[in-house]
């Protein structure tokens, strides 16, 4: 995430250039933020395909609407409003359809796509894999039981490292409401994982 003062100055110039049709400037704006956008979408939706859809839609909306950006908030906040709305829509649709798109049928039963993704990143030590695999499953299950808003606030605070004030701004709510939401989320996580850590 590019939030340093120097970059912010450059960022303003980049946005103005992109608004005037400079493709290079737009490319640099995308690359300043796209890794964190993809990470956010992937963590929330637990599906690389859905995360890629959100990535595409979010940056296309930015591209199409960049001229309406008036610097009333930071570019980061504006972009994250778009991304979080897309993710929340997707998460709510899943709840309505009762769809478990993060899972598919493996030979030994349902397998979480995120587990297969991360499994490729660890070595063959069976004991460690068992430990971290079990813990990850417990965490994913507990995260899956949070409401869409709790999940979003928790993701933005714990994994993306945003301050509650900024999270409130992104989600169109107060800092206090975001804090209450985070409080509920952490309580639920503690109850779900308390005997494991």
């Amino acid at each position, binding site marked *: 995430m590019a939030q340093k003062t120097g970059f912010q100055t450059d960022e303003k110039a980049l946005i103005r250039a992109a608004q005037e049709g400079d*493709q*290079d400037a737009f490319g640099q704006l995308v690359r300043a933020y796209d890794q964190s956008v993809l*990470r956010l979408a992937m963590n929330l939706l637990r599906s690389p395909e859905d995360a890629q859809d959100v*990535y595409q839609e979010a940056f296309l909306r930015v591209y199409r609407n960049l001229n309406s950006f008036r610097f009333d908030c930071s570019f980061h906040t504006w972009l994250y409003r778009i991304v979080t709305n897309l993710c929340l829509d997707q998460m709510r649709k899943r709840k309505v359809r009762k769809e478990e798109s993060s899972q598919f049928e493996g030979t030994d039963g349902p397998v979480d796509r995120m587990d297969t993704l991360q499994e490729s990143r660890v070595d063959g030590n069976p004991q*460690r894999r068992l430990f971290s695999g079990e*813990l990850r499953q417990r965490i*994913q299950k507990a995260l899956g039981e949070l409401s869409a808003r709790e999940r979003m606030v928790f993701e933005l605070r714990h994994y993306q490292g945003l301050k509650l004030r900024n999270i409130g701004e992104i989600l169109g709510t107060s800092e206090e409401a975001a804090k209450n939401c985070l409080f509920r989320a952490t309580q639920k*996580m503690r109850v779900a994982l308390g005997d494991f*850590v």
Partner: protein
Amino acid sequence: MNSCEKIRTQLSMLLYGELSFDEEEAVDAHLESCAECRTALERERELHAALDQAQAEPPASVLWESRQNLKERIAAEHGPSSSRRVSWWDRFLDTAWLKPVGGLALVTVGFLGARLTPDLGLGITGMSLADPGAQRVRSVEPSPDGGIQIVLDETRQRVVSGGLDDQKIRVLLLSAAKDPSDPGLRYETVGILNDRAQAAEVRDTLIYALEHDENAGVRLKAMDGLRPFVKQPEVRKALAGVLLSDGNPGMRTQAIDLLTQGVGESTGPALGRDIIGTLQELMNRENNAYVRQRGQRVLQLVNASQETY
């Protein structure tokens, strides 16, 4: 709600740095006089560290594909008659022609203006990747032929080739392994360096990652690369450091396994006094039940006492 109950509801917010000044003062004052709440705070820290493990880092290939798709969709919005000039964005993404030759790694290297460095002829020797004015490694990923593809951010790009043992490639990889801004890049780079850990400079970089990297995935990967060198004093020292100070219980468990591998088997090695001392120290401070159990088992195998006094 008594004061302990109230304080415990605030511990998570304390760790997130989201308490007001007055709230934090009250929590700190209470913690100074309440051992039980200090223990609760440690458990909260353990919980936060455990939660860190669940974060997924998008693979470089998914990011690459997303950028490529976005480029195509934006081009489609312009229509086929668009006569845009070929941009930095296009050049960065247009990698179809980057086909590695033979067993060579293919490296996409950006240049800053005409800065050429005589040592390598590439303008990359001795550069600081953290320096915003210099080139920066954006991603590292294996190519299908077993080579490596490295992408650096710059205003212009050019392609150079080299094998894994090539010094210029190694300079880039050693720098990328410490790039503070991109854990995904560090993870991929450390994975590639693991195959060359017999070289002292590579091993030093892996030890640095093991001791200092903030991302547990990168630290785990570095530990994997050091596995064959666990008998070397500097590696043992680093693993002992992990055992006593790494916040991630999975890392501590793995460090125990590496430092004590073969212990207890009939032909296994005797456990050194230094490692026994480290394990006893661990027993003094370890809160995680699983890690404690692992440490206790090893100490029982060598008939050592469970704790130091």
